[in-house]
């Protein structure tokens, strides 16, 4: 009896459990599936209607009309993702399973005007199920990335990273409440990163080296054809692959590798476009698709400012507008409006350090750091950024969380950066789910996840983090609880986006500092 009591009162490390992925992963995945199923009846945004309309378009129309149709001008939910995504929707809407699940006579797959497109319960269940099923890709990608990141290291580290990726509440909010397919896209992205890292782990003399690098490139090419948001990472991929795959230490440039890479990538990039170019008017098709993909007319920022540099810029603009009539020493009456070109140039210039680092110091940690930094750059500067884009930086960063848990590391640790970025990035997603009905779920899942991050980081929950938490609490109260109406209605949203922007800009700078820091043991060994 007494010995029993003693073994029970061990410390509360769950490392032993995390060291057995085969025991811990199935329950975790099953629990998350159950969560997603129960979330089906919650709020869904117009993105649901968007994707439903794409199902209808790909179900009812010939390929040539996919990018032209807008149900005679009665819908704004037109197809505006690249061709692969259109094929994905076509696959969903045209397979025998779908016609069996969606009951006969249901309008789920019909072309409907915006004024009358309320979906039936079966339609919602079907559509939500496609998201849940597509999360399988997310899990596989996350697992691949975690395993190759922590190659040859204790298993609990990759389990932790995997757990933090698949249980990110942002994914639940975006995909399973708001409705999108981010999980699938991020899964491909992580899979691509995982293959690249695995190639790095293997080294050029092993079998599978070419397969991994080419596979990573192919997955990325597919990803680009699914969602063009990832185009902002193209320079990084190009530089990394060019310098790390096509160049081998001591042997110089490998033309064979380059040729293989170039041809494979080009085929994967262009193949999905071929069916559209085989139509009667290929030029018209191409121009129409590009016009749909890049709607620059939408303005610099979204209705709700994403928490980036432009939010701060617009705030400064507002301040100047208010202040300049009163304070004559201010030389300008408003700040200049940036053009898409300015955004693109800023983004590219700010990405340069990452391109250099990723192509010169070839290690997995540096690659992921560069990916995180580049994603943050595009989040900060790109034209018409959505708040959701933060996930593109946050999810890869999760891979690094369990990297340096040794205490003697002086720098700003990855886990602290991750905590900060989750704190502000996820808070910035709050306005997406604006109904009071989801408020409880939003707040509790957020708090629980932040606690999970602290639990895994093994760091002290210092006064700095407490201060940040307090600030977040105040923001949540302003945003969700205070009944601000009328003239100052915009204030809660503005405060949220400004404070999140400040936090994320700080994270962005820290991630640059981490990227440039020379700390990685393996690099030292290699170079010296």
């Amino acid at each position, binding site marked *: 009896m007494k010995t029993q009591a003693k073994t029970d009162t*061990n410390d509360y490390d769950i490392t032993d459990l995390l060291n057995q992925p085969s025991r811990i992963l199935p*329950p975790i995945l099953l629990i998350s599936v*159950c*969560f997603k199923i129960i*979330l089906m*009846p919650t709020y869904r945004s117009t993105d649901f209607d968007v994707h439903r309309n794409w199902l209808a378009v790909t179900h009812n129309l010939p390929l040539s009309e996919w990018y032209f149709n807008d149900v005679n001008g009665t819908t704004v939910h037109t197809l505006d993702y690249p061709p692969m995504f259109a094929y994905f929707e076509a696959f969903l809407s045209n397979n025998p399973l779908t016609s069996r699940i969606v009951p006969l006579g249901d309008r789920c797959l019909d072309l409907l005007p915006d004024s009358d497109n309320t979906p039936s319960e079966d339609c919602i269940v079907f559509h939500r199920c496609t998201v849940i099923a597509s999360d399988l890709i997310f899990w596989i990608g996350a697992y691949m990335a975690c395993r190759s990141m922590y190659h040859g290291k204790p298993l609990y580290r990759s389990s932790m990273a995997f757990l933090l990726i698949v249980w990110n509440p942002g994914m639940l909010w975006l995909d399973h409440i708001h409705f999108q397919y981010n999980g699938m896209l991020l899964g491909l992205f992580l899979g691509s990163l995982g293959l690249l890292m695995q190639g790095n782990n293997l080294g050029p003399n092993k079998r599978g080296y070419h397969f991994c690098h080419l596979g990573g490139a192919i997955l990325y090419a597919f990803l680009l054809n699914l969602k063009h948001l990832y185009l902002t990472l193209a320079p990084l991929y190009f530089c990394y692959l060019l310098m790390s795959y096509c160049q081998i230490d001591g042997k110089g440039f490998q033309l064979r590798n380059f040729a293989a890479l170039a041809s494979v990538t080009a085929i994967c990039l262009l193949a999905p476009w071929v069916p559209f170019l085989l139509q009667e008017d290929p030029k018209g098709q191409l121009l129409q698709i590009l016009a749909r993909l890049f709607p620059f007319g939408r303005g610099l920022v979204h209705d709700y400012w994403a928490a980036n540099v432009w939010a701060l810029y617009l705030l400064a603009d507002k301040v100047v507008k208010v202040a300049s009539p009163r304070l004559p020493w201010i030389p300008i009456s408003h700040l200049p409006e940036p053009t898409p070109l300015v955004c693109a140039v800023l983004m590219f210039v700010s990405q340069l350090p990452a391109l250099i680092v990723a192509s010169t110091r070839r290690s997995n940690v540096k690659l992921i750091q560069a990916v995180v930094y580049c994603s943050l750059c595009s989040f900060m500067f790109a034209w018409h950024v959505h708040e959701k884009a933060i996930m593109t930086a946050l999810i890869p960063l999760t891979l690094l969380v369990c990297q340096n848990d040794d205490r003697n590391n002086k720098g700003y640790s990855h886990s602290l950066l991750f905590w900060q970025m989750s704190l502000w990035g996820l808070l910035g997603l709050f306005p997406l789910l604006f109904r009071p*009905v989801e408020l*409880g779920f939003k707040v509790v899942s957020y708090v629980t996840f932040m*606690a999970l991050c602290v639990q895994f980081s093994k760091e002290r*929950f210092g006064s700095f983090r407490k201060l940040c938490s307090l600030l977040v609490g105040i923001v949540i109260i302003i945003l969700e609880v205070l009944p601000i109406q009328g003239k100052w209605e915009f204030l809660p949203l503005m405060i949220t986006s400004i404070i999140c922007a400040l936090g994320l800009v700080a994270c962005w700078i820290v991630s640059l500092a981490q990227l440039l820091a020379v700390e990685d043991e393996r690099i030292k060994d290699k170079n010296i």
Partner: protein
Amino acid sequence: MTQSTAVNNRIPITLITICFGFACILRILIGFGHHSGENNYHGSSKAYGGDFEAQRHWMEITYWLPVGDWYWYDLDYWGLDYPPLTAYHSYLCGWLSHRLAGPETVALDSSRGIEDPVHKAYMRATVLVFDFLIFGTAVCYSSFRNDRGSMWVSFITLCQPAILLVDHGHFQYNSIALGFSIAAFAFISQDRFRSCIYGSILFCLALNFKQMTLYYAPVVFFYLLGRCISTPKRFFQRLILLGVTVLTCFGVLWLPFIVTGPSDMMTTPLERMMQIVRRIFPFERGLFEGKVSNLWCALNTRPISIRDRIDSSVQPLLALVLTLIMIAPSSFALFCLGMKGDEMATSKINNQNHWKRLLWGTMSCSLSFFLASFQVHEKSILMSLAPCSLLLWEDPKFVLWFSRVCVWTLWPLLQVDRLHTPYFCMLIIFEMLVHLGQDHFSSKPSVFSGIFSMIPWLTYAIMIGLHAIEFSLGPPAALPDLYPVLWSVVGCALFCLAYIISCAKVLLPVEGKNKVE
């Protein structure tokens, strides 16, 4: 080594946040499902909805009417039939609802059958808040001791699918009554007699929140009596102290209803009191309600049909006698336990055994009421489940088996409420949590060991089998109620088994049992 483990022994606050947060997320998720009677799904022509509408209606009448009218107003439409503390609680929720969810949600008469997502969220939030405030606090106070075992006990108790599905799915405030009861048990089982006084106050609150907590009353009474007798010198002093406490508590809570009567007729104080009692104990409703997994319902199947054979005036008496027989073991055992109450301070192990014995007693007693008493609801099984769940570290196999049986017997109810998805999802989530703790659970001694170890597996096979048969075949046209009846008969048999085990646990001495195994 021992020093370092002693330092590490404190459970980090983050881990506690994660566990509480997870339990909270489960509650919120279930809350997204339908509540009882949503969209008037049963199609009842007499009164809209179910328990949800009843609770909302009580908020409406308590908010608008003077206290005297609460137990008299329009009784045909979900008249108030819970004890006074529920009425006050409804008033508080109604007051907040008027301000937070909008005045239309509790407007007198005109709000009947209102359906509004924000109002539903508000109602769910009230359950959630009180659940954590009272049930959560009580569970942590009674069981949380900063070690891994107690962590699991609290966590699993807070994630009991049966409790969550009834409170947050079907919609009731059982967790408040359960919380008060558990807190009361935790207090009365402490070695100082002063704690017994606090415990009895808490138990009075539980009794005044939900009459169902009467299921615990005999064991609590006999235990406290034992405590009084344990030091003969102070017997009368203690007895009077407890009596005065209980009477004062009841007096304070009942006084407003006795002093003021309904505004539209003349009543004497006695009549007013009797009105509350009549409302709380509706004997005219019959031996049992719906399809409950208790003895009466099981004995009412075709060849026996007990309800038709025995005169309806004898039925309450029969139920009473059988219940009294069934509660005898646990009452006797707890009376003896109470006698030993003052010796507890001698050792920590002793203290723990005392607490566990008390829990077995309360479980056994409430199970006997559930099985044999008059007018039982299927939800009353929660009264046995809550104390049983706190015994997780004693006998995980049995407790988990009992948890599964409990939630399984609620299936017919949840099916009517259209909570199929939350039911299955909660079952899976619960199983997965158990799976994560399997290392700890499987190493413990259990009653289901040796030849009995097949009992749980047999039970699970039957339960899953019945689900599969119902899903694939559906009821035959001649017997539309076949499956609820099967559920109640099987459930009754399993609960009888649980009753026997709990009686054995509470009667047999702990040391002797250890030697036998």
